[in-house]
């Protein structure tokens, strides 16, 4: 290893490789270069690398994490893991606490995934987000099972087996959140300089992204329709007619997305003015579509909050549950409105930059 150091004039390759893997991709190149430049010994390199990494990871977590998206991820996971269900027996751990442990694990995984996110297609990002959340929930339950078997904790800490079916409903929505609202740097960039080729290329990239996201959204909708229909048929709940009407709405949206969800194709003979006009119109239309879709995606969650918190609180004379219902409904609405507002601002800037280059 010593000869390795002298030949390279820097840290041992193995040590450098370890620090390289631990550093977030967005900061890897300059930070590793700085650590190389300051290299004095393997011990100094390792110690400084690890200390620096903790700051860089925290900074990257702050930069890559959006509060309203995290809010929606918490809501959807907590609801689908049964956190809002009333606890009927006072001698068992509340459903909210059991779901809270699983949600905390999933959230840790999602934040770390944001930190170590490599560039990739939106669909892939969404799928990896959903897979990360699922893996972390399962890992947390596995850890609880080990602790329970070892006698370190009592029974009732784990979420019930039946909840996993409901929990699966969270995955398509997490996937869509990652695919649709994941950081889109191209949208944040100013419009390309005013040549036909550059604007056309920019629009083609935008079109490809929207089509990819549209496919992901349609797949998620189809999965939710299938899963929900299965739950309705097998459990035959009292609110089944309500559920079927939801599913009919989902099917209508699915049909619309199949027809007009992606950005329109650019005509081959479109000149610069026509290309810009189409680009502006599609940016605005896609933004409007997203606004409606986010509210639509969370309609079942709103319905769940009303029945599980508000209605239950009223019928069981539980003011705390009523207040919790009002607060969570407002908070969920605020998260959706904030996501839509943030994206709207970015879209308006992009439209303005397109007009500025005209």
């Amino acid at each position, binding site marked *: 290893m010593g000869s390795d150091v002298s030949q390279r004039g820097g840290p041992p390759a193995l040590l450098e490789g370890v620090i390289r893997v631990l550093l977030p991709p967005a900061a890897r190149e300059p930070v590793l*270069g*700085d650590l190389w*430049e300051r290299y004095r010994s393997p011990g100094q390199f390792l110690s*400084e690398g690890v*200390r*620096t990494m*903790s700051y*860089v990871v925290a900074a*990257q977590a702050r930069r890559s994490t959006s509060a309203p998206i995290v809010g929606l991820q918490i809501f959807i996971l907590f609801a689908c893991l049964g956190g809002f269900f009333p606890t009927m027996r006072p001698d068992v751990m509340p459903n909210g606490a059991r779901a809270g442990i699983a949600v905390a694990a999933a959230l840790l995984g999602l934040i770390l995934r944001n930190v170590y996110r490599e560039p990739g297609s939106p669909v892939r990002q969404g799928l990896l987000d959903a897979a990360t959340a699922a893996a972390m929930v399962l890992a947390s339950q596995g850890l609880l099972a080990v602790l329970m078997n070892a006698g370190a904790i009592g029974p009732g800490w784990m979420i019930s087996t039946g909840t996993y079916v409901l929990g699966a409903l969270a995955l398509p929505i997490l996937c869509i959140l990652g695919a649709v609202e994941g950081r889109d740097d191209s949208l944040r960039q100013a419009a390309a300089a005013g040549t036909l080729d550059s604007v056309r290329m920019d629009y083609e990239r935008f079109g490809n992204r929207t089509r990819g996201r549209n496919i992901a959204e349609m797949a998620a909708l189809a999965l939710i329709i299938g899963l929900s229909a299965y739950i309705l048929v097998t459990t035959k709940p009292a609110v089944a007619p309500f559920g079927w009407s939801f599913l009919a709405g989902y099917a209508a949206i699915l049909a619309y997305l199949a027809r007009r969800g992606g950005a329109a194709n650019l005509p081959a003979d479109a000149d610069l003015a026509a290309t810009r006009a189409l680009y502006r119109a599609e940016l605005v239309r896609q933004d409007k579509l997203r606004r409606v879709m986010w509210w639509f995606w969370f309609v079942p969650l709103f319905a769940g909050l009303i029945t599980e918190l508000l209605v239950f609180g009223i019928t069981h004379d539980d003011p705390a549950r009523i207040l919790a219902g009002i607060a969570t409904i407002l908070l969920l609405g605020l998260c959706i409105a904030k996501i839509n507002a943030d994206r709207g601002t970015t879209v308006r800037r992009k439209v303005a930059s397109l007009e500025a280059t005209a």
Partner: protein
Amino acid sequence: MTNSPTLGQFEQLVLTAILSLGDNAYGVTIHARVEELAAPRKAALGAVYATLDRMEDKGLVSSWMSDPTPERGGRAKRHFKLEQAGVLALREAAATAQRMVEAVRARWGEDSWEAT
């Protein structure tokens, strides 16, 4: 009254380091200059990165990548420069510091610096 953001002490040190380094402001040199300015206190390299990221998000500084160099294992440097908002914020912080120095001198006299 200006609308420039209020800077923390460490942010002031990092902005001053970038200003004084000119075209040679990147992680290693900024950290070294911050330690000079903050002496005898030490500063963690990671704390400098975290502060630079935060200030870039606030629009106080901007960064760009240079070409890779062999003494860094063939890796690029991330250079920083002050943006207009950073210049204004630093100017305001420096003016505040100047007024503090004058107030301390008026009370304790010129010798007060040697006493510390």
